[in-house]
């Protein structure tokens, strides 16, 4: 492997699960990469494959049922097909994952400190119990839990929601991982607590210089956190590029739909809320052609029935910067600026 390769490289990742109703393709031909010190935001709705793909990075899928192809390289090491012992060395040590609902993700019967110490000891077998405990207290202190030497002996249910998520982060970072995957880390939290957690994640990232993947459905979180953004729909990447580029010059109607579906707290009150009609597709029987075409309100601008018959390639758009999109539209930036923007954010147009 070349030493210049990013820390995490995912190439043509496909994850399939056999079910009683047939083969479900949860992720298909997904490629992305994250460098150390950078944050990739993965956006998508439930069923878009964003969590499934990240769990594949840790090899968390049941090897007996999940069919994984493609390549996932962590610091040059191939993860797909790696045996359990090899995976265990990566998990928690080089790659840590924090989950959405910290109350459910922490074991209800064990003390916070014990769970942190366990994460430390499994990768530091020579460490004594006392050292592991000291490390746990130190990490709780680092993530801003008051009186960590006392709270270390609390059970998860004795923590508030925000503190539990902090403890979860402390557990993830206890072994100095180089990659942190945060799966909807703030979804269940109040905005004030969410702001605290996002600040904390940013502080810790600059301190540890780790690569971060943040999975969310909240474009606001993406806007604040991510250097790069990957938009996923029905198991595939549909738009990928630098965060600012994706959010200001999106070229894929699904991304437009996401932007027009959320009101903005400072936007013009005349901006319309325009939903994406319909429901996400079934992964068992995905639509033909572009998976988004049954819900797409711009497919009339593509000649013929290209959208319904041909899956668009994931390719570089017209803009100069690196910006991949999966769409048949010829001049998406013109459509976005002339049609979409005036309806969803008239004030942004005026600034231009």
């Amino acid at each position: 492997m070349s030493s210049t390769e990013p820390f995490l490289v995912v190439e043509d990742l496909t994850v399939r699960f056999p079910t009683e109703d047939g083969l479900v393709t949860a992720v298909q031909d997904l490629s992305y990469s994250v460098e150390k010190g950078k944050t990739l935001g993965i956006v998508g709705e439930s069923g878009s494959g964003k969590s499934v793909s990240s769990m594949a990075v840790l090899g968390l899928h049941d090897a007996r049922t999940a069919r994984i192809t493609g390549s996932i390289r962590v610091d040059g090491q191939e993860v797909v097909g790696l045996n359990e012992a090899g995976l265990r060395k990566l998990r928690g040590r080089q790659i840590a994952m924090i989950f959405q609902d910290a109350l459910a993700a922490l074991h209800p019967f064990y003390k916070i400190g014990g769970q942190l110490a366990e994460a430390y000891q499994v990768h530091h077998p020579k460490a004594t119990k006392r050292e592991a405990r000291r490390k746990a207290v130190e990490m709780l202190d680092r993530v801003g839990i008051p009186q960590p030497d006392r709270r270390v002996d609390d059970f998860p249910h004795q923590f508030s929601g925000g503190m539990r998520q902090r403890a979860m982060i402390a557990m993830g970072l206890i072994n100095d991982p180089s990659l942190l995957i945060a799966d909807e880390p703030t979804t269940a939290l109040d905005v004030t607590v969410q702001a605290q957690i996002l600040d904390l994640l940013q502080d810790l990232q600059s301190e540890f210089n780790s690569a971060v993947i943040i999975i969310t459905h909240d474009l606001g979180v993406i806007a604040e956190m991510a250097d790069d953004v990957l938009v996923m729909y029905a198991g595939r990447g549909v738009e990928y590029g630098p965060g600012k580029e994706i959010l200001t010059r999106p070229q894929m109607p699904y991304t437009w739909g996401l932007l027009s579906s959320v009101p903005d707290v400072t936007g013009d009150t005349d901006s319309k809320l325009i939903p994406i009609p319909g429901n996400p597709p079934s992964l068992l029987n995905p639509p033909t052609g572009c998976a988004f075409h049954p819900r797409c309100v711009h497919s009339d601008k593509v000649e013929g029935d290209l959208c319904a018959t041909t899956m668009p390639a994931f390719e570089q758009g017209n803009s100069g910067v690196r910006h991949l999109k999966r769409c048949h539209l010829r001049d998406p930036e013109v459509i976005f600026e002339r049609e979409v923007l005036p309806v969803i954010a008239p004030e942004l147009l005026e600034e231009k």
Partner: protein
Amino acid sequence: MSNINLDTDPERNPENPETRHAPELAKPDDVSHLSFAEIAAQGHGATRLDPDAPAVLSVDNLKMYFPVKSSGVVRRTIGHVQAVDGISFEVPRGGSLGLVGESGCGKSTTGRLITRLYEPTGGSMHFGEDRVDLAKVSNRAMKPLRRDVQMIFQDPYTSLNPRHTVGSIVGAPLSVHKVVPKDKIKDRVKELLEVVGLNPEHYNRYPNEFSGGQRQRIGIARALTLNPKLLVADEPVSALDVSIQAQVINLLQELQAEMGIAFLFIAHDLAIVRHFCPEVAVMYLGKIVEIADRETIYGSAHHPYTQALLSAVPDVKQAAIGGRRERIRLEGDVPSPINPPSGCRFRTRCHLAQDICAKVEPPLLQIGPRHKVACHFAGELGDAPRTPVTAGLLGVDGQGSPDPSVTPEDIPTGPGYEKRWFDVKSRQMVSA
């Protein structure tokens, strides 16, 4: 019965405005023939305020204390959770009031009080043209009123009985309240399903056959069954995917415009509340700390808590066009509602707090034509006064100790707005 035309079949009823988009909504999986212009025409901007609308609900000094029992062989009541502690507000007829705040602030309890899922400890809730006090009526007298006050729940997965068909879920209120003859119930249910954008032929399916957004539509149809005047919507979209949230919000806006339903809209998502509610009340630890129209709350909030909440909202457009707003960090967690802080409940997390805040509770003071705030140091963000604006009104000095030289003024505490208010800049009573 309904006074609006619910017949949405375009062949039978081409005049009904519903028919314009009902077919698309009824078949949400096949929308490829829609163009962006068409769908944009169906989108809505933020709901506007009608300042002259009379109140459909006036809540005055509403309280809900839950007893806390001691442990031990004999269980005594050793304290109370002051979940809601003396809140007053009005919901205008056909309008929407948003109720926002962090979890545990009492916003959901308020919703449950209004639908009388709890019996309030004190206060009044006058409803409708007859000004019936929902806080006082017996459960028996409440039954007919329940037609007028309905609720939409947060979780579309647990709030529908999985063993009942959609038809019986939506139709149950009709048979319970005996408003429609038995043989007409099915037709009415089909109409309602169509109104909320579901395929009416699916009335005999079970909730698990629907997606989250569709289930929430079923919940809405159930709430609409009896033509309510007031809908309490408790986090109606927070369990839904982003694209589906917007569908449901648009649907609620349409229903409100067409059926004249008033909403008490409880949510923690400040952006959604801003879009849906022309008026917003901010709650903290059982109290309303600020209530005002949308422009005031989001443009010139005067309470440090409101300012902190707003600054914490991640903002797509702001962040995308560069830079982000400075956040006001709120340290720590919300204190326990069993032993709330003395004086102002927010003072333990407030960067403006001074001695007076621990001694005197700030009243919810009207400081603008449609703006009330409960803070001794109420002021625009970054421009808070150095001395308490309330001292003169409350008969105390700047530290909150009683000042015999000042006579306290009579501050109105009712739910509505007065013609005269206290201007915090000039510190004088002014009127429009």
